[in-house]
């Protein structure tokens, strides 16, 4: 499954990093604590969060994450979007809560 497949299935907004829509997704991680993601997320996972600042992209890049999903209508900061383009790691968005989008994502990935 690719990031693009998830965008389509969950009707997510693609804010930036379109070049990364072909990235393969291996799973997901949900957290708003950056050290938690640093310590526990793994390569190819989609990160569900409400954090919108640039450090999100630093972590996504260092951990080789597939994409970031911002919940409850949050939008990426300008410099977050810029780095997303540079790293080709998409930042996606939804109006769903972290609970709802994660439930759908879990079902989709483990289908």
């Amino acid at each position, binding site marked *: 499954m690719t990031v693009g497949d998830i965008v389509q299935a969950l009707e997510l907004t693609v804010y930036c990093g379109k070049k990364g829509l072909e990235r393969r997704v291996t799973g997901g991680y949900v957290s708003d*604590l950056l*050290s938690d993601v*640093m*310590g526990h997320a793994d390569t190819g996972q989609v990160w569900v969060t409400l954090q919108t600042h*640039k*450090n999100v992209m630093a972590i996504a*890049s260092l951990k080789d994450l597939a994409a970031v999903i911002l919940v409850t209508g949050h939008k990426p900061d300008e410099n977050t979007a810029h780095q997303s383009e540079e790293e080709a790691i998409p930042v996606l968005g939804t109006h769903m809560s972290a609970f709802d989008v994660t439930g759908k994502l879990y079902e989709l990935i483990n289908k």
Partner: protein
Amino acid sequence: MRIVVPGRVETHILSGMTERMHFEHNIVGGDFTRAGYASSQVKKALKTLDVDMAIIKRTVVATYEAEVNVVAHACNGMMIVDIDGSTIQVVIQDEGPGIEDVEQAMVEGFSTASSEVREMGFGAGMGLSNMKKNADSLHIESEPGKGTKVEILMALDGREEVRSKK
């Protein structure tokens, strides 16, 4: 003593890589927009040297946490990286408030981060334990009022060797 068998070509098999690399990066205290930059440079360098991906991942977790601590707490700092055939050594040193009680700081959940830093999702008191879990060897020296020096060692040819040097 080395015995050379006549007629047989003597070969030197070097374990791991033979290249040495040294580089340094500034870390600016308080500048969160650049937090992670030094660690991303370390990652790039290790990839270039074809270091095992599992080792790169652990190294980067440890260096990132150390880098963020400098940004969140100190005035300014340096990340000094030395890589040789067997070890990656990363020293992160800063001029800053230092750590009063390193043992207490190592306890997961303990944090002195400001509320602004916590709102960004940092300062959950997980940084030092992430460093400890991922580094093969971690050494922290700190002088309150002056600064902190963190040394992270990663073994390239087997984790146990460096661990036993602790």
